[in-house]
Every structure is written in structure tokens, then in C-alpha cells.
């Protein structure tokens, strides 16, 4: 069975032909669109490595069938920086050493972008820790991750349009 979906992927409209209804958004990105920046850590919604934004909300792309996303707007780690200018969250992860091996990092960063947009955590470390707890980091870079999200939240609060990026 073949069918077609339309996605806005990192700002670009894409027509995507699919021959298999079993394809998840994660595997679509990684195995079919050559966008492996989004990572697979568990493939069952338990680790957050595959976090992307769909219509501005953070979701686990491993739990989302690509076929259900017709018309959706998807943002991945590849779509965050503007040219060479990093997104404030990306820069904050580097500044605060919020990564070690870097494998969970794309998911952490997308989750942080989503969390900051949700506006529920502000720069309160306790709430940031809670709000980031869907993203496992086995290297346990949590201290740096919390500092990074706080730095970015503060910066983006001062500069809501993200012009600092």
C-alpha cells in the first residue's frame, strides 16, 4: 500500500511517499529522510532521545506513526540553528557542559525548547529537573543540563523572539 503525506519539516514543505503504515516518525527521519540527528534510545517512549516538536509541542517521535502526521509541522534538532548561529538552548548546553557522549543531547535540547515554550518551569531548577525528567541521560550530565535550561530560559525570557540567536 502506498500513500502520501505532507509535512512541514524544519520550515520546508515536504511531500512524502510511504509504502508502509508501520513507519514511525523517528524511523522516517532516520532511515528514509537521511536526518539521523534525532536519536533512538528505546523505541518505546521511555527515554526521550527521540524528542522532536510537532506543531510546537514536544513528543516522542518513536511513538508517533508517520502516517498520522499529514499536515503537521515538525521541528528536529537539525532545524534549530539559523545557519551558523546556534539556538540559545544549544549554546547553553555547550556553555554548561550539559552533555557528555551527546547521544541523548538532541532529545534533551528539543525537550528543553518545548519546556521553555510551555512556560511552566521558568528558571526554577526544581521545576526544570521535573520537566526534563522524560529525557534519560545515562552519562548523567543532569547538573549541566539543568544549568543550561535555566540559562536559556532566562535569556529567552529577556529576548522572547529569540533574536539573541
Amino acid at each position, binding site marked *: 500500500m502506498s500513500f502520501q503525506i505532507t509535512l512541514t519539516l524544519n520550515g520546508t514543505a515536504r511531500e512524502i511517499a510511504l509504502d*508502509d503504515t508501520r513507519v514511525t516518525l523517528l524511523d522516517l527521519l532516520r532511515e528514509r529522510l537521511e536526518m539521523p540527528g534525532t536519536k533512538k534510545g528505546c523505541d*518505546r517512549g521511555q527515554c526521550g532521545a527521540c524528542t522532536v516538536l510537532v506543531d510546537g509541542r514536544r513528543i516522542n517521535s518513536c511513538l508517533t506513526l508517520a502516517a498520522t502526521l499529514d499536515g503537521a509541522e515538525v521541528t528536529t534538532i*537539525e532545524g534549530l540553528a539559523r545557519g551558523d548561529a546556534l539556538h540559545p538552548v544549544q549554546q547553553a548546553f555547550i556553555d554548561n557542559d550539559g552533555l557528555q557522549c551527546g547521544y*541523548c543531547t538532541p532529545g534533551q535540547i528539543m525537550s528543553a525548547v518545548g519546556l521553555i515554550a510551555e512556560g511552566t518551569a521558568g528558571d526554577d531548577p*526544581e521545576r526544570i529537573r521535573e520537566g526534563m525528567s522524560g*529525557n534519560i541521560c*545515562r552519562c548523567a550530565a543532569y547538573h549541566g543540563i539543568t544549568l543550561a535550561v535555566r540559562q536559556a530560559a532566562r535569556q529567552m525570557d529577556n529576548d522572547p523572539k529569540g533574536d539573541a540567536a
Partner: protein
Amino acid sequence: MPDTLTRFGSNSGQPTTRRDGIAKVTGQATFAADNHPEGMLHAVYVPAGIARGRVAHLEVEAARAHPGVTHVITPGNRPDLPGDPDAKPTRFSFRIEVLQDDTVRYAGQPIALVLAETLEAATEGARLLAPRYEAEPPRTGLDDNAPFAVEEPGFGAPGDTVHGDPEAGHAAAATSIDATYDTPPQYHNAMESHAVVAQWDGDRLTLDTPSQALAMSCAAYAHLFGIEAADITLRSPYLGGGFGSKAIPNGPMVLAILAAREAGRPVKLSLTRRQMFGPVGHRGATRQRLRLGCDADGRLTVIDHETLAATSTFETFLESASNASQGLYASSAIRSAHQGVRLDVGTPGPMRAPGEASGSAALECAMDELAQAAGIDPLEFRLRNYAETEPGTGKPYSSKALRECYARGAEAFGWADRPARPGTMRSTDGKLVGWGMGTAFFPSPMFAAEARATLRADGSATLETGGADMGQGAWTALAQIAADGIGLPLDRVELRSGLSTLPDGGVAGGSGHTATAGGALHSAGGDVVRQLSELASGQPDSPLFGAGNATFEARGGRLQIAGDDGRGDAFADILARAGLSELTGSGSASRPDADSRDYAMNSHGAVFAEVAVDPDLGQIRVRRLVGAFAAGRIVNPRLAESQLMGGMIWGLSFALHEAAVHDPRSGRILNADLAEYRVPVNADVQGLEVITVEEDDPHVNALGIKGVGEIGITGTVGAIANAVWHATGTRVRRFPIGLADLLAAE
């Protein structure tokens, strides 16, 4: 300080941010499974659903008939593997399971492999194989089989060691404890699962696969596939975590490479999370009995540490936990002994602080119990038993700033205010609060590595070694050392690493990679500097002409006479005069035997923990964790802090979170996923503080580096367990400590 500067240059010691940071925050860093060569097939294997017995039937035809499936490989049709999978081609090797026959030796063992055009088709094909088994009763608990004597727990660790007279030590004790601690099976669970993309071109093999030991892995693959190691290109620029599990080739990787050869097309295999619980190593379970005694002054008369540890039915590697009692505390007698038990589980392997983590957990709890029994503060008790030389051997320590770690950690934590009696501290929200501490201790081994340095006419350089960055920061720290070795600023140095065709970077393990690969890079740079000195002192136009006997120093792209800032020459000018477009040097590093004979070399530290326990629910939270560590020269304080914190959180995980649980009937692991195999999440971590205590170690290696990758776990487990006791008065001797243990004790 001047000495230190001469030895290390100015790039080391800086808190440089990660050089691979931009690649990693933009999603551009390429991990193994991110590769997708033209014409690639996907491999998915079937993990055994029983732990012991044989595979009686597979629905091969059903799998083959599934659209997209190209190959179904079972023991019946497995292509020939030239090398013996039971042989040990390298120093660190394990027997591996590659569909030799239909025997099942543990749950999760690969029993068939499917190749297909898409991941979805391969996954479905594997499911359709629907295995039927003839099962035998599995043995998965430490009491399920008879113990056997262990001569060597694995990779050269000693089995039994006795110093002094333990029986006399027991007899002389005024106060004694006899306590038994249980530690569970733990699984590495790097976030990046084991993966390989294999491509054959005739007898040449290209592998994208995460590796903590590139050259050693190539040697193993060469043996297995009957080819030359030089015909293998292994690319491992980034590992998504390793923790010891990615150093030694395992069965699934070998099967995927074999399948690629059979199919004549590239093949990708990436383990599912569930498959990470079985064929790729784990920390085996232990039961440790500690009998400790001290005299009336609180001085240890004996440390008697016996470990019963699990291994598989077909290979011997077990947690050499008792060895943690050698080398740390002064005691008239120390005995460490091991027994093994063969279980129907995958072969255990080295997992972050193998042996030391489990052993330290038990030892530090036992020390706390004895201190309490003797009525001495736990920190004071450890100070009374401070070893000035290595216990048993009397060797001097190459350096040991442990006393300062105790002092600085205790000061930062506020240990002096700790009430001796348990159960006396409450938080404002009514929680029981407890404080505990433990000593951190980890050896500082070195492996062997080689490196190459190339200085170019424009004054920039490339330094090369096949090292491994698994998150510890090798891309950054090794570049800092390399820049110092060749006397250039960091931004003039390109580091090439993570590729098997480069000089052998050794093993990224044992916390020894920075010292070893860094040592080789530093010496390669030094070789270039030596050649520059020779050239310059023979160039009449050089300010250094005729200075051949002087001691040279290279810094900032200039060669100078040591101690004479005025007299120097630029690298670029020396090369230009010599008419050279580049200059190449080589270097190597390993530890001379005499050094290990003459000195005991270890990192040390002290960890202090505060926990809060809900008096009604038994829920435990770590509220503060302060670690002070002395680990020789710290190359990059920012990254070292991250490593030490990561290790401490692994300690927290050991103490309170992680354990694999076997179903006693099937032998399968019940919680083989990241929801139920609990590892700490962000909300579990607060109040972390790391202090590094400076050490200038002239003996451990040329760079004075001891390593920080593993020590953070040790000490932390005991500190947290001891804090739980101090909060509640309940001594739990089984890890991980959970609320059920506390409620059961009421």
C-alpha cells in the same frame, strides 16, 4: 609551579568547552547507526525467550515469505565463520554466541537473524520466526548453582590475596562485625545501543561501530573473519556512551558483519533496548561477606572480604569485588577471596569500575558498621586507619592526597555537625535526614598507545591517534595535551582520532585513556620539537644556532631556550629555512614495569551524602552529594567535573535505583527496558558538588594523570547507604535500597 608549566604547557588545565560540542548540539555528530550506505539491508535478530535449553523450531518459511525479507539466518544455514568464536585472539576477549548450534545458554542470546530491505520488514520477519523451545529449568540466582573456586576473576585480576594473618587479626579484635551484602545484576545501558554498519569490498571490511578499543577490536574481527587487521577500517568518531560494554566485540555485531558478507550488501544492525540485556555484558551479581575487626583504639586488625559472584555457564568473568579491600585501609591483616557461580545469564563484563564499584559498596558500609560498633565517628575511623604506604606490600603511593580530600569534603559538607546517633535529624517538612560518607578509591592503570604528529609550514599541526570519545571528552582533553606536547595554541592543532587506520590509541577503559593516548600524543609532539631543535641549532640564521646542548622549550609555536625568554625561533621560520613543508614525529606511551613495581598508583576521594527519608512511605531522596577527589593532573576541569559527577550519579543509581530482575521460571529479565530498569532521571539529582584536590604526581606517568572516569561511583554507594542508616537506624545490606526494605524493617 614553574616545573608544572614546563611539564604540561598552558593548554592543559584550562576549562575549555567541548570541541565536539557544536556537532553534538546540532545533531551533526555521526553515531554508528546514523550511517546509511547505498543498498543497505537492515538486520534484526531474534533473542532467545528462554534461558536454558534448545531451540526446537523456527517458522523460517513464514519469515522468508514476508515482503522485503531477503535472508533468514539460523544455526542450520549460518555462513561459515573462519575464526573460532571460542578462541581468545586478544588480551581482552570473550567467547561469543554466533549461532554455533541450537543451544540456548541465556535469555536474549541471538538464535536467528533476519535481513530485509526495511527496518519494519526485518522486525516483522524476526517476529514471524515464532520460536518454540525445549526448556530446562534456568539458574539465575546466586543460590541456584554450586560455587566454584576462582583463580582469576577475569582480565588478570587476582583471585585470592592474603596479607598478614587474618585468624590472628580476628582473635585480636576488640570489636568485630560480620555482615553480608548483596548487589544485583546491572546492565550498562548506554543510551546509544550497540550498533554496526558493515560493508565488505572483497576481503576489505569497513565498519561503523562504537568502539572503546579500535585496534583491539580490529584484531578480534580479523581473527573471526580470516582477514588482516590492516584490511579493516573501523570508524568510531563518537560513542553514545560505553561504560565498558563497547570494548570487546560481541555476538550480534559479528553476526551482522557475517550477514553482510553473505548478502554482498551493506548491513545495519542496531540493538533494541531489550536486546541490551543479554549478549553485550553486564555487571554480575555478588554476595559479599565482610568480617572486620579493630582493636580498642579503633585500629583495624583484620579486613576479611569474601565474594561470591555470578558468571555465565561458558565463560569466566566476575566482579572481583573483594579486591577493593586491598590497597586502601591500613590493617594488620587483609584477606580477599572470590568464588564464582555459573548461571544461565549472558557473560558479565567490565562495567564502569568493574569489581571496585561492588566491592567499595560493601566495604564502605562495613567500615561504617564497625565504626558505629566501636563508637567512633565514621570519618575519624577512616583517618585512624589511613594507610601511609600500600597495606600488605608496603609500597609507597605515587601520590595520595586522600587526607586533604577528607578534610575538604567534610568542610564543604559540614560533617562536623553530624550527630552520632541515627534517626535524630528531621527536615522542616518532617523527613528523616541522615548523613553518611565513604572513601573513593580507584587504580590508575595505563595501556599502550601510539601517536603521530605533523607540523606544517604555516605553523599548524595535526596530531593523530585512534582514540575513543565515549563522552569523557577525549576530543577535547587529548587535543589540549597534544597542543602542549607540540608547543602550539589549541586552535592551531587538529586532532584526528576515532579511526582504526590511525596509530593505535589503546583501550579507553580503566580510566586510563587520557594518560595513555594523551601520553602518546604528547610524546609525538615532543618528537617534532626535538627535530626542530636539531634543525634550528644547525641553522646559522636561527637565533638558536649552536645551542644544541641547551634545554629547549616549545610554546605558542616558538622554540626557546628554557629559562631564556629572549632567545627563540618560530616553528614556521625553522621549517622555512630548512625548506620543509612539514615535519613528522611519532610517539608512544605505556608504563614501564619498574614503575608499577615500585609504586602503588591510585586515585582517591571522599564522598559525603545527605538523604531524606519519608517516615511513612520509606521513600528515599538524596539531597546533597559532595565529593572531593585527588586524581593527579586534571587536564580539563570542566570535563573532569562532569565525569566525576556522572560517576557519583552512577553511585546513586547503584545505591537506590538499578537492578535487573530475573523471572525465576523463564529466566528472562522482567524489567529489560528503561521504564522498569530504573536509572536516575534529572529529578533524582540535586545538590551535587565536586571538589578536585591538586596532586602533582611525578611517578604515575609522564603527564601526572590518574584518571577520573570511574572513581566517582566508588565511595558514593556506601556514603548513601550509610546516610540511609543514619536517617532511619535501619541497616539495609541489599542493593538497591528501596522503600520496601525500610518498611519491612519496621
